[in-house]
């Protein structure tokens, strides 16, 4: 029982990170109908940027995270600007464009930070909490709290602000949105920037839990993407549920199947997707592809 709960706790904190990654995937997808394959590598850049400001420049962790989010947000804007001429013209090229940007970002990370990664010490010094024999890292609690806050903020932005409403409108029907005077380009740019910011948040938070190197994107991206699929691509709530589901599933699989955990995680994922191809909260109407 104690084991089961301990595994659950570690699954939840990584799940919160996957949820953040999945939210970024979904936000861009629902607005533009595009899967941003550079997303995970933006998260990796975010992790490197946050760790550099935190470790090398000795800034407080929160400030380092803020700077990382701003930097990656700018990268998101650049990617969107480069791809904009292709919007509504050549979808496949846009998709390949994002893959290309991902490769560029990885190469850039190796040029800037070298090939050896870095382990980031936890920004919270306090010892892990001991609740009925279950050790809970205080940092894990922070990660979950920040992720929850980000979910609430994003939901508020999309449903309560004018900009957010405009993005929703573009997501539903971009031609009708253009007709009523919404700037689709700006809306897309905003989606990309917020998506990139979420990636940096995920990357920065996961740094002290895992290990920051140029291949970090691979580990985060595949699970984050799976989380978005499981929850229903394009759905923000789905991304959260999917992220936590993948995190917990992965955690239990690692406990029971050891070296074969990845295989088991994705087998279960495949079966779930076969049973419900649109994901848990999948809305057909969002799909524009």
């Amino acid at each position, binding site marked *: 029982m104690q084991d089961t709960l301990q*595994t659950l*706790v*570690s699954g939840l904190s990584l799940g919160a990170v996957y949820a953040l990654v999945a939210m970024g995937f979904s936000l861009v997808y629902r607005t533009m109908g595009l899967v941003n394959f550079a997303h995970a590598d933006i998260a990796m850049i975010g992790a490197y940027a946050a760790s550099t400001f935190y470790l090398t420049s000795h800034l407080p962790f929160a400030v380092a995270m803020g700077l990382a989010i701003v930097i990656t947000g700018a990268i998101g804007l650049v990617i969107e600007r480069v791809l904009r001429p292709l919007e509504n013209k050549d979808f496949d090229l846009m998709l390949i464009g994002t893959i290309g940007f991902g490769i560029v970002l990885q190469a850039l990370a190796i040029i800037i930070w070298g*090939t050896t990664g870095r*382990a980031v010490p936890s920004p919270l010094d306090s010892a892990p909490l001991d609740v009925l024999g279950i050790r809970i890292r205080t940092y894990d609690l922070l990660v979950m709290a920040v992720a929850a806050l980000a979910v609430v903020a994003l939901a508020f932005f999309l449903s309560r602000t004018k900009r957010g409403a405009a993005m929703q409108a573009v997501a539903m029907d971009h031609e009708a949105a253009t007709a009523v005077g919404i700037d689709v380009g700006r809306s897309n740019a905003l989606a990309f920037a917020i998506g990139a910011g979420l990636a940096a948040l995920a990357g920065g938070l996961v740094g002290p839990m895992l290990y920051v190197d140029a291949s970090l994107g691979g580990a985060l991206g595949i699970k984050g993407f799976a989380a978005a699929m499981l929850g229903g691509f394009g759905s923000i709530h789905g991304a959260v549920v999917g992220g936590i589901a993948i995190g917990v599933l992965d955690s239990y699989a690692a*406990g029971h199947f050891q*070296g074969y955990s990845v295989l088991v995680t994705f087998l279960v994922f495949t079966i779930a997707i076969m049973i419900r191809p649109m994901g848990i909260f999948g809305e057909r109407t969002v799909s524009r592809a």
Partner: protein
Amino acid sequence: MSRTPRPSVPRTALVAAVALAAALTACSAPGESDSEAGSDSGPIKIAVVNARSGQLSSLGEWEYKGAKLAIDEWNKKGGVNGRKIEMKSFDDQGDPTTGTNLARKIDSENYIAMIGTAESAVTIAMAPVLKQAGIPNITSGQADALVDQKSPFLFLNGPTSTTYDSTLAKHLIEDKGYKKIAMITNNGSFGKGEHDAFAKAAKDLGVSPVTDQVVTTDQKDFSAALTKIRSKKPEAVFIGSEEVEAGLIVKQARDLGITVPFAGAAPQGTPVFIDTAGEKAVEGTIVSSPYLSNDISPAAQKFAAAYQAAYGEEAELHGAKAYDGTNILLTALKSSDVATGRKLADAIRATAYDGLLGRFEFGADGVGITETAIGVIRDGKLVEQK
């Protein structure tokens, strides 16, 4: 009107003849097919193959520096029998497939010997190609599977996992009196070798692990495995994994409240392991290593000083191993008057050498050294266990 091409009898015969010729060439004794490799003038070409990118790149970096230091010293003294040594570094990315391609490349570019790799899996993948091409290879790998290759061209510049781990198991069980030992290893070549070697050594001493956790080589979160280990309340935890992963395991274990010491072989004595886990987390880690510190002998002090002067950083085990291995190769080249192929391999086998790690005397299995010592990490430094 169309004509259907039909293979004529002579053509079939020709194809068969070509195939037969190819098969015959392939079957010729290893080392004899590459007569052009050993030209009698010009620089001696030696390839250094190691991971220069990816998670294992720190290993590759040390190896490269150790090998380069040895070659530079020889070149400064005038090379081998008046010929300069030319060394080129190749990046295998820690990937066996890349390694196999590089093995073909160094064959086609007529390198006469290879130093590396530090990754057992890559070396094992390269071994058949190098054996066929007759290129002697001094590896820094330590997995027992290297010996199982039975290649007369493959040499180890250090002890095998069995040596590391039987020394370690003996220390933990007999000297410390631990009966409850947990294991966590990865499923790569190195980790698997460590797993089998330690499990066997412990079993021979009448102890079986309380839990035996296997993780993947690219795993980053070990909570599940560590939770299992914690619930078994072991007295020590054996790690069979490379530097970075081992560091992450220890870091996360301390967060989960595992306070017992960790024990392991070469990777756990390195600065990368200590930096990854954090100095506080690795305190008391027990390490089995043939090169505990730069102060173990006058030769080691001299090596460390030269290393410091050349690269501005402290030397460690892997650099020392590569330095020893490269010196053995160059000594063999000198004694054999720059032989190649089988003759060079025999010359390496015949070379007895007093290195930084101890006295090398190669057996038929390509292992030159069969002893390690026990050290312990105190205040972020590996020191000899007194």
